[in-house]
């Protein structure tokens, strides 16, 4: 089993664990954590897709000869995408927690079951 596979499987496992959490936990903070775990899983999967066994980081320093760069480095694109995805994920999670703070303030409850006033 090479590193790519391990990371992939870890990523997928995190996705499933995260969804399990979102589906079973009643505490809103835990649901947000579930989503965060799913995001992490997806980010791992993304990075793993860019990985090539035995290659180095896409930084063209002394370890990488410029003319042969394309045969020495891993794919830089997923890394760039993950960077963006992480930042956006952080922003969304922070905002979600803010909503929970405000919701808690109104009903003094963190249970998702207590916020069903809008329905049908």
């Amino acid at each position, binding site marked *: 089993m090479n590193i790519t596979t391990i990371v992939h499987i870890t990523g997928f496992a995190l996705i499933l664990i995260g969804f*399990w959490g979102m589906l079973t936990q009643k505490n809103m903070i835990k649901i947000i954590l579930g989503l965060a775990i799913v995001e992490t899983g997806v980010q791992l999967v993304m990075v793993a897709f860019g990985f090539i066994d035995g290659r180095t980081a896409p*930084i063209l320093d002394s370890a990488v000869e410029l003319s042969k760069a394309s045969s020495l480095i891993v794919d830089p*694109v997923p890394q760039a995408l993950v*960077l963006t995805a992480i*930042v956006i994920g952080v922003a969304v999670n*922070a905002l979600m927690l803010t909503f929970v703070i405000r919701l808690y303030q109104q009903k003094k409850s963190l249970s998702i079951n207590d916020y069903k006033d809008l329905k049908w």
Partner: protein
Amino acid sequence: MIKRLIPLLLVISLFFILLKVATNVAPNYDLTGVAKTYAEQGASDLGAMNLVTAIVVTYRGLDTLGEVTVLFMAGTGIALLLRRKKKKNDSGIKNRAASEILKTGSKLLVPIITMFGAYIFINGHLSPGGGFQGGAAIASAVMLMFLADSSFKINHKVFVLIESFSGIFYVLIGVLGLVILGADNFLDNRILPLGTFGTILSAGTIPLIYTLVGLKVGTELASILDNMKGELE
């Protein structure tokens, strides 16, 4: 048990979807598509050693501008949502004072962390790192100060100014590309000379942009922390 059955079924179903992906992933042996082009031309095009940075700041600069926007908006939104009435600002419960170790340690560490953060974003085009990472490091310094001193307050006016103007300058640098180079050159880093490959002052506007991003992210994350730590009403 029955309550758990539906989630279980759903997660198992998802498992089968992911299984299909997992069983069909073939390991990469070579760079393909756009990644190959980046690897071959990135250095000569943009003069950045760190290809990820080249992609993030220039090739896919619009994404990054969007990313900065998202973070900025989250900060704004959190400030909006956690706004509080001014009168009640001081009536919060007194927090327990931090321990001596934390106080002393933070005094020692804060300058170093801040400096490290700055280092990360200034060297973003040369080594792993960049504006977001550097900004996050700086924000962690602010967080340490919050922990060490519960009465510590950030200077909002200054922070807002830094946030605003680093953002505006970022947009202006992008627009300068349009003005100087042409309609297809928004966020082109080559409005400044590319310089000598591998030095600090190379890669055109990349270090400049990353510095602005670093400042912006640092102040934004710090403001978010500040907003979240306060008591509400």
